[in-house]
């Protein structure tokens, strides 16, 4: 009986030691994994969103009977850009009730042309198709 109890205790002891060893190994493994994690500084920069500027110009109910300016921003410097010829022809064929006026913006494609904007407004322009960039 005593021998059996001793054997039982020994087996328990071995099992306990094995469990402890496994637990220790697991702990070490977790620690090793944590040790491999690297903390680094963040290089990213936050970009600020621009203040919203609403569109306020009312849209047209129809283009029929309206004057639409085709403004060539002179991207290549020697304007006119031929796509506007085609566009004028398209309007003439498909929407003859729309009056189109072609204007070549002065200066290069980044130069403002306040005189033209004024002219469009004062001469009864109803809308503007501006291009072509790229």
């Amino acid at each position, binding site marked *: 009986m005593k021998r059996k109890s001793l054997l039982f205790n020994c087996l328990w002891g071995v099992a306990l030691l094995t469990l402890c060893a496994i637990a220790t190994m697991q702990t070490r493994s977790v620690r090793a994994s944590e040790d491999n994690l690297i903390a*680094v500084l963040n290089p990213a920069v936050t970009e600020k969103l621009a203040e919203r500027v609403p569109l306020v110009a009312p849209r047209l109910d129809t283009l029929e009977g309206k004057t639409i300016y085709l403004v060539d921003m002179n991207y*290549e410097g020697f304007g006119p850009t031929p796509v506007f010829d085609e566009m004028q022809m398209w309007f003439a064929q498909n929407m003859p009730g729309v009056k189109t006026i072609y204007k070549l*913006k002065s200066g290069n494609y980044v130069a403002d042309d306040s005189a033209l*904007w004024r002219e469009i407004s004062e001469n009864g322009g109803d809308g503007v*198709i501006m291009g072509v960039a790229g």
Partner: protein
Amino acid sequence: MSRFCGTLEQQYGLPTVSLANENVVSFGINTHFKYSTGVPLRWVGMPYPFTGLNKEMLKTYLEGKDNVSGKPVMQAIIEALTRPLTAEEKKTGTPAQAAPEPRFLPPDTEDNLQRLFKDKHWTDYNPIILPTEERVAAMLKGTSHKPDEVVKTGAGTFGTTRPFTVEKVAIIAVMAGAKPEYLPVILALASQVPYSDSTTSNANMVLVNGPIRNEIGMNSGIGALGPNAEANSVIGRAMNLIHFVIQGYQEGVTGYSSLSNPLRYNNVTIAENEEALPEGWKPFHVLMGHKPEESVLTVLMGWNFVNCSGSVVEHYPPQFLMRDFMRVLAAIGSATIIMDPSVAYLLRNSQGFQTKAALAEWLSDNAEVPAGTYWANSIASGMMGPLAKQGLEPYASWRKVSNDTLINHLPNPQNIRTIVVGGSTASVWFLTDFMAGRGVSIDDWR
């Protein structure tokens, strides 16, 4: 175009529609609207190119689909002018801003962090040095400036608001593999954002002058333009990382350089070989108004980079070949010649050019290009063509002559510059059209 349409909409109450190619539209409705103008313009997108097409092709464009709405182009244009404004388009005020970036990234393994930096487009796709707190602290010892000092606010493309600090630059410097002593140069370089970008494959050049060249071991001798020196390599790399991370440049999102340019791999990062300048030839930064003892960084930009293809020959002086090669320059009225000290020596002592300015004047007087070739360059026609139309000389006269008439297309000798660099093992040179920005003090960032 955004600016003009914005003016017509806001000041004159006119409905507008902006017509552009796909990449301009994408930039216009995303990045430019969100971070720059705040105006929700209406765009219609067509394919590229617009020029050089016959009528049939142009008709096809108009009958094709708008890249934004997917509707036929003409229908999209009409709708842009007639569709009532939406609540979104009428919004005012400041949008909810993104949360500030945390100072640290979540801890992770080396491999995962390397992958994260690539996925975020924070690298040049070579491995980076991970910017640990210790490494960044060590890097910051390279400057007296405080880590939280703001270097610049308008750092984004078109100057959008992307404030960044000295610490951010130190992080980039670590990532690029820099030594702390490089940091003042990299800070000066960072202060120059946004860098020049174009769909037309331009490139930048970084030039360092003054004592710091030798202090940090920049190579201005043998192999100076190649990948042969740590400081040159790392500073050139840092420029790309600044471009991507701080400026936020990303092809297809904030930039659309169709071919880009291989010079961008290292941004031609060089130091002038000031010690090898012939007598009377002053360093680049001195000619730009700085003192010889100042350390100065200059960012240049341009398109052309032409190798002289062999060394100087006995029967044709180098300035003649430089003049001949100048025909190919992109016609923005500038040239920068990068020449070996042996070429400078020959030009000074055999050809009589006592100064860099004397060479520039000769080249300005003698370089010619057929007018047709000059105007065939879209940068020349786009920028100078309207000036010709307005009667501004010399462009007006150049516009009037026949295509094969030769014109002196580099009329201002002050825009023809020389950089002497190299190891005097071959009398070689590169001709570029690079133009110089304002040189900035590196010493201010020590």
